């Protein structure tokens, strides 16, 4: 494999990036020019990608580096995988752009949309031509942040919320990826795509740590369970062209990352002692893939919004890809089939999923409706759309002759191969999950087109028109691609998969075997029958019991995983804050504050008692006074309730005050009884009432301060107690701990 320095990959990234500026500029001179410029930029990028593919496909790797960019240099390296997928990316993007022109015509903020739309392409295509993990990360982040604007385009409550989930999960993912980069940079000294597992182990860093970070990094984008939660929120709220590229292309960056990292960076030769790591990684990925595809499909069946079903379908299809990635990694050098399946399905899914999303967009454009329960009976008004939809459905469910069939067969072969080589019974179960999921896929897709185009119309569709010319052209291209790949099955594998598989040290026998996949065998041709049989059963059950199926909230991944993690985290942090900001300082400052207050109250009370002279007035009846006292006590009890907010210190204090009070009361009563006669009682009553009232008010004040400011806080000037205590503690620490 020869290398050539070429500016092409740079151009491929720069065209859309700088094109953003051109789009914004052109927008000043009208919508028409803007869409022309956008189309032109997209087309130029596509041409550049094709040119690059043409060169690379002859056996050269294109490299380019901008040294001195952020110390590490920005590196491009385009091999067959990157070049092929660049073509796919730019083609899908171009088609979606053409589609978007009509779709976006009635939307707000069009210029912003198209600017970020173009910029996102720059980031995305950059991911596939990046030469090392760091450059990949840069493009990845650019794509993530630019795509955020596409997600929240509607700017309503729902999309903002979806955007938040997307953004924060993506930032978390980006940081996890950054963790991988840190470790690689530390271990290898560079972040290129070279085998590094042995070095990692030699440095004493657990490869599992890297794997977990990797899953965090790429798994978020790839919609891997349970990191997928942003996907069914974000993809449906974005405008249709955006959801198409998000679902078809952007999630592939995750898969692509796994492909590079798992097959190259975290790989070892078969015989190595570290191979067990690779095998475990692979096995883990098969399971993750199986769970993802199964749950995704189930959720797809249970949802009723067209775009949401498709979003779950994306998750499910990503499950297929991860499944294939895993089965390839599991087998090491014998894993050519797994790799081939993953790679082929990445390409195929990119096409048919964008096809489906654009179709959903077209339906929405003409009917203004995406809810499957409100659509229906559109076959009369939109027969052409129905036709396209059936083609797309045939692709995704793997009907022979359409492109989905090719990759599904290869993936199926991969898992069977894994079983034949390893004889792990669990692999056979995984194969069954795969087959069942195929059925579920057929079920949810059939549900969409049945509910949209057949059945009774729920609304008046007489105004609805069929697809316009440009959309027909776009969809026509999709159909052509689907049929070309599907019909030439083995030819597609030979041209697209074998050169890619040859980049990796796979067993030559397997690669040769890959040249003769039994696409037209009897069992393979009959596989859709199984799928559709399952689909019919599922749809029947859904029709019969669908109304009764309510997924309880506590079963959602959000609830089961994130809510719990969040709650735990929140509880921990709040506890920490409580300890640091409230509990400890309150302990310390209440020492001073409370005792100061106690001093004061005691002194005042003493003074009052001293000041108190035997009343010269008529004495009130003891019962009256007792009643008064009862009232005061009741009031006090009320206060005590308020003070519960406070701490033990306060309680002790209250106890003390109460005790005093009791004494005072007793003394008061004694005195009252002492001067039974000959004294004007009214005054005594007044006096007693007054002092009691005062006390009650005082305590109420005190309680009020406790209530409003029950704790020390940073607004409080009494901060010094805390600080001094710490300073002393630290000095003592130096004293005591060291000696």
């Amino acid at each position, binding site marked *: 494999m020869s290398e050539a320095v070429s500016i092409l990959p740079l151009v491929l990234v720069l065209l859309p990036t700088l094109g953003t500026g051109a789009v914004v500029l052109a927008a000043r001179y009208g919508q028409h020019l803007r869409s022309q410029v956008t189309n032109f930029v997209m087309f130029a990028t596509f041409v550049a990608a094709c040119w690059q593919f043409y060169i690379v496909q002859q056996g050269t790797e294109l490299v380019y580096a901008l040294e*001195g*960019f*952020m*110390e590490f240099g920005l590196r491009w390296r385009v091999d067959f995988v990157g070049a092929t997928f660049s073509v796919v990316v730019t083609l899908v993007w171009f088609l979606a752009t053409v589609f978007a022109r009509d779709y976006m015509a009635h939307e707000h903020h069009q210029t912003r949309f198209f600017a970020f739309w173009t910029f996102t392409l720059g980031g995305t295509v950059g991911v596939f031509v990046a030469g090392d993990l760091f450059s990949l*990360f*840069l493009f990845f*982040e650019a794509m993530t*942040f630019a795509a955020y*604007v596409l997600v*929240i385009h509607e*700017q309503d409550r729902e999309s*903002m919320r979806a*955007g*938040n989930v997307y*953004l*924060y999960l993506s*930032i*978390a993912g*980006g*940081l*996890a990826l*950054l*963790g991988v980069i*840190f*470790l690689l*940079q*530390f271990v290898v000294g560079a972040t290129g795509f070279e085998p590094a597992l042995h070095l990692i182990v030699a440095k004493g*860093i657990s490869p599992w*740590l890297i794997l977990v970070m990797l899953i965090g990094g790429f798994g978020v984008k790839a919609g891997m369970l349970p990191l997928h939660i942003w996907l069914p929120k974000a993809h449906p709220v974005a405008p249709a062209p955006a959801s198409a590229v998000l679902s078809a292309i952007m999630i592939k960056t995750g898969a692509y990352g796994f492909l590079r990292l798992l097959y190259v960076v975290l790989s070892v030769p078969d015989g190595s002692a570290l191979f067990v790591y690779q095998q475990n990684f692979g096995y883990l990925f098969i399971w993750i893939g199986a769970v993802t595809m199964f749950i995704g499909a189930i959720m797809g069946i249970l949802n009723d919004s067209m775009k949401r079903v498709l979003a779950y379908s994306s998750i499910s299809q990503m499950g297929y890809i991860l499944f294939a990635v895993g089965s390839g990694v599991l087998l090491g050098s014998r894993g050519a089939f797994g790799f081939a399946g993953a790679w082929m399905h990445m390409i195929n899914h990119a096409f048919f999923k964008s096809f489906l999303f654009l179709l959903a967009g077209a339906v929405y454009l003409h009917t203004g409706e995406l809810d499957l329960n409100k659509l229906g009976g559109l076959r009369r008004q939109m027969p052409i759309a129905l036709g396209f939809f059936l083609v797309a459905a045939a692709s995704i469910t793997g009907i022979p002759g359409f492109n989905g069939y090719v990759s599904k067969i290869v993936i199926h072969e991969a898992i069977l191969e894994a079983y034949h080589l390893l004889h792990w019974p669990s692999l056979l179960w995984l194969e069954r999950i795969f087959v069942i999921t195929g059925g579920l896929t057929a079920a949810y897709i059939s549900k969409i087109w049945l509910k949209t185009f057949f059945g009774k119309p729920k609304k008046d569709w007489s105004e609805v028109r069929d697809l316009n010319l440009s959309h027909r052209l776009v969809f026509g291209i999709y159909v052509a691609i689907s049929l070309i790949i599907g019909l030439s099955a083995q030819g597609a594998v030979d041209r697209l998969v074998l050169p890619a598989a040859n980049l990796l040290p796979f067993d030559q026998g397997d690669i040769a075997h890959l040249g003769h996949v039994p696409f037209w065998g009897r069992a393979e041709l009959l596989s859709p029958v199984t799928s559709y049989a399952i689909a019919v059963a599922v749809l029947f059950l859904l029709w019969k019991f669908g109304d009764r199926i309510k997924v309880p909230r506590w079963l959602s991944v959000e609830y089961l995983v994130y809510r719990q993690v969040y709650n735990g985290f929140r509880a921990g*942090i709040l506890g*920490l*804050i409580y300890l*640091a*900001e409230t509990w400890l300082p309150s302990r310390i400052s209440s020492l001073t504050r409370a005792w100061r207050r106690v001093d004061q109250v005691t002194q005042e009370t003493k003074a009052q008692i001293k000041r108190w002279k035997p009343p010269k007035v008529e004495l009130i009846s003891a019962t009256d006074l007792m009643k008064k006292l009862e009232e005061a006590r009741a009031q006090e009890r009320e206060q005590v309730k308020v003070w519960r907010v406070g701490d033990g210190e306060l309680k002790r204090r209250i106890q003390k005050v109460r005790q005093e009070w009791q004494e005072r009361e007793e003394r008061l009563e004694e005195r009252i009884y002492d001067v039974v006669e000959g004294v004007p009682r009214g005054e005594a009553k007044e006096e007693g009432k007054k002092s009691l009232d005062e006390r009650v008010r005082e305590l109420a004040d005190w309680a009020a301060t406790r209530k409003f400011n029950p704790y020390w806080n*940073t*607004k409080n*000037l009494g*901060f*010094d107690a*805390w*600080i*001094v205590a*710490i*300073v002393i503690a*630290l*000095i003592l*620490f*130096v*004293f005591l*701990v*060291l*000696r």
Partner: protein
Amino acid sequence: MITAHIMPLTILLPLVGAYLILLVGSKHRSFARNFGLLTTGITFAMVCYITYLVSNQGKMAYYLGGWAPPLGIELRADPITAFLLLTFAGVSFFVLLFAYDILPGEINGKVITRYYALYLVLLGSLLGIVLSNDFFNIYVFLEISSIAAAALVAVNGDKLAMEASIKYLVMSTLGSGTVLMGIAGLYMVTGYLSLDFLAGALPQAYASHPLTVLMTLGMLTVGIAVKAALFPLHVWLPDAHGSAPTSSSAILSGLVVKVYIAVLLKLLYRVFPLDFLAALPLQGSLLVMATLGIFIGSIMAIRQRDIKKMLAYSTVAQIGYVFLGIGLFSEKAMLGAVYHVFSHAVMKSMLFLSAGLLIKYSGKRTIADLSGLGRVYPIPMIAFSVGALSMVGVPPLAGFMSKWYLGLGALEANQLLFLLVLLLSSLLNGFYYMPIVIGGFFKKETVEIRQEKIPLGAQISLLVLIAATFFFGLFSNIPISFLTPTVQGIFSAFGGGI
């Protein structure tokens, strides 16, 4: 002549300028603004010249009055010092440029002259601290800086600011009292105050008075930690930085806190031998406190409604990063710490300045009320966003580079845990910064926004800070290669590999 005396002149210039401003400015009010800006600008130019000299000569020393240490006072500039000087002078120049038209609207017209004088005194003391190679000199400048800083908080005379100011003053007096005690202790056991001589005499002193030396180290560290707002000694910071005028907050959060870190760097890396430090639990406690500070600061920032309070708490968290870098005792981590001092100074002053503008135009301080401002005032909001993204550590901004070095340093020091701390806390940074950015650009206004023209000086200074954030992210190799030899020297001198 100027070349020979450039270092003392750089310190003197702002101090003398402050006097002149007080003398003349009380009658001619615009004099203060123009002359203040001019003085800061010249200081900046002189610092640039010092940096140039240092990059040529490696090190510069100046004996005040011609008395060589240990008798005399020495000023010293090495690459790290020069880098910090450049940060301080540059950021304070652009903050002042920003304040040129903004400040009169923000504070009482009568105190503007005083404000400028205090600002220059503060700048002079900051430069003095960085340049001094003598502990007592450092102490004097420390005190000048803390009085000036507290006065800058209280200058407007409103209640909250004064409360915050007195809190700040008491705290920093406590801190500097402790520092002075530590310095006295050092002097007692060694008989020197000059850093170089101290470093030479300490091993012997430790052999004879281990307890005193340890106590001294503890007191100095604690005292500096109080002033630099290391968790849990940070309680004064949010109030002080949150209630000061915009330009004060910017310079307080961006620079003043950092200068104490410069002192700590001198203390830990120039005075105490590294192998000696490594044997103490100092590293552990610094790291734990830094980590707690990062997390608690971030969480508290998330809980704030007031944007300036939020930024202030974010400073607490970011100080944690710097202490993390210092406490890791590894080459890359120290580079990261020094670089973070710089990048945080730029980012945080930019954030405070743009937040000040946003507050000015919306009339509200709550985060929720800043929605939609980005469409009306793009420059401040973009500045805020760039600062925010840089804080989160998005490449290719300056904040990413400091985190990069901190992370590599953590790995180098074999402390994988702190890499995770770094990553997790970056996510927390995202949690409190991103809502403002999102709200600013993509949400509807909640309050009536005043339509005004942003003054030219403010625009320029924000644009320069944005450019700096990008430049020092993209071309970080320039400062890094400038700093690396010194840092390597520090570590190789003590056998490296701690």
